[in-house]
């Protein structure tokens, strides 16, 4: 039976031309076949954070945390994005927040992350609600064994030394327990939610 008649019976069979052995030109005799290539993609951007985040980052250089208030609902967002998702309107009033708050939710990580040798497991990342803010933001809880972190625990920012401060949220090294009594959270359903009404 010829290969052509086999192909006529089986539509998925490779055409005879493709099943024939490949003959390399003499110049490529002995060349190692290419089986895979790696084609990395890298692009460079000059990111501009916008009005609200620029204000926030500049304040960071002075160890100040700036949020922004929604004129319609009174909610305070931090870090500010320049907009209130509740109202669909621009926020404009900057609000200086304390560098204290409480842990609303947390997670203990026990596996290392590639390229983050500074994060030595186990460590605790937490959703921290600053005093005066309506939403939480992410931070590391430090100066305490991760197993002792709990919802409601009061914390304060630990800042980089003054001479190392930059226009960066990385100025906050982490959040350490203040030793104050825990916030009492009675409504666990509320965690992570922002209600569309005044608090």
């Amino acid at each position: 039976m010829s290969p052509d008649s086999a192909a006529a019976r089986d539509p998925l069979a490779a055409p005879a031309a493709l099943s024939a052995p490949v003959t390399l030109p003499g110049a490529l005799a002995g060349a190692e076949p290419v089986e895979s290539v790696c084609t990395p993609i890298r692009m460079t951007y000059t990111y501009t954070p916008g009005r609200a985040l620029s204000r926030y980052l500049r304040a960071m250089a002075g160890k100040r945390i700036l949020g922004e208030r929604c004129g319609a609902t009174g909610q305070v967002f931090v870090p500010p994005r320049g907009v209130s998702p509740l109202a669909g309107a621009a926020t404009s009033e900057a609000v200086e927040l304390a560098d204290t708050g409480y842990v609303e939710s947390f997670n203990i990580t026990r596996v290392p992350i590639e390229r983050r040798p500074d994060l030595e497991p186990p460590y605790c990342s937490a959703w921290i609600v600053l005093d005066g803010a309506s939403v939480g933001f992410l931070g590391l809880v430090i100066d305490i064994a991760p197993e002792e972190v709990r919802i409601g625990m009061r914390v304060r920012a630990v800042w980089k030394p003054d001479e190392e401060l930059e226009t960066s949220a990385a100025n906050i090294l982490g959040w350490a327990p203040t030793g104050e009594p825990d916030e009492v959270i009675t409504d666990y359903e509320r965690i992570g939610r922002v209600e569309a009404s005044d608090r």
Partner: protein
Amino acid sequence: MIDVAVVAFAQRQEAAISGESEVEFMVPLMEQAKASVGLTQSDMGFTCSGSSDFLAGQAFSFVMTIDGTGPVPPISESHVEQDGAWALYEAWVKIQCGGIDTAFVYGYGKSSPGSVRDVLATQMDPYYVCPLWPDSYAIEALAARLMLEGGHVSENRLAEIAARSRAGAASNPHAVRSEPKSVAEILAEDYAIDPLRPSDLPAEADGGCAVVLAAGDRARELCERPAWIRGIDHRSDAHTLGVRDLTSSASARLAAHHAGAAGDKIDLAELHGPFTTSEHLLIDALGLNEDSTAVNPSGGALAANTMMASGLIRIGEAASRIWRGDGDRAVAHAASGPCLQQNMVCVLEGD
């Protein structure tokens, strides 16, 4: 088929918007479009947006912009990684499905944070072409060379298109390149990327736009003279440049046919041709008669090319002219991909 019309439009285009984030400059546009017809977000049956993470340099960048709509309580919403014109198409389909009579659509992009010519290289096939990082303008120049040498177009014709864009842009406050130039002045320009001159290339812009769609009687309530979408269709050519005929646009021709662009008189056409060569191909593919149709009265994408918004802006520009009575029947076109790979044609009419 449910009659759907464009009833509101707002836009902003600038050479670079460096002080504001995407959501910061989109919020006023969203408010302006909705307020112009007395609506708020809670009136919208559906919301759809178009933008690109590759331009923003951030994953899920569109999520931050949704905040600008005020999506609390939760809204019915979708996003396309495409020009906002495709978001409009999705919204039009959603209205055709019934149950809603309004939709809010927006598209936006910033080219200034990165190199848009490199960003566009990443849309090529990832195995054989993208690793070569083909400059997006160079690819258009190769196609232009094919067109010139095949006798499909002349450099003089390209200069005429560029001059017309500049003349139209002179009265468009959103145009980035609007200083008038004669054909002779354009032909005297040195090649930017042979055989294309600076005036053959798009004026890259940052910005965005927002559109409100409404159906039937709702559209008549909101707008004195709604711009009815009489036909809309989008088609795609093959991804691989090597299998395409780059001297014509088969997918634009097909989209125009299915949208019903042929036949009756067309008063004006807003074409998303970022290069003079693309505008030339589109005029042919859409079968436009330049004696009876005003082509790109806004200056088109040559005068301001805002990635992910330029196509939707064409629809908005065409609709605005129908509202004002500048024409009764218009064609708006949006493109995406290298060398007009994807094309959408939308026919708009006033009552």
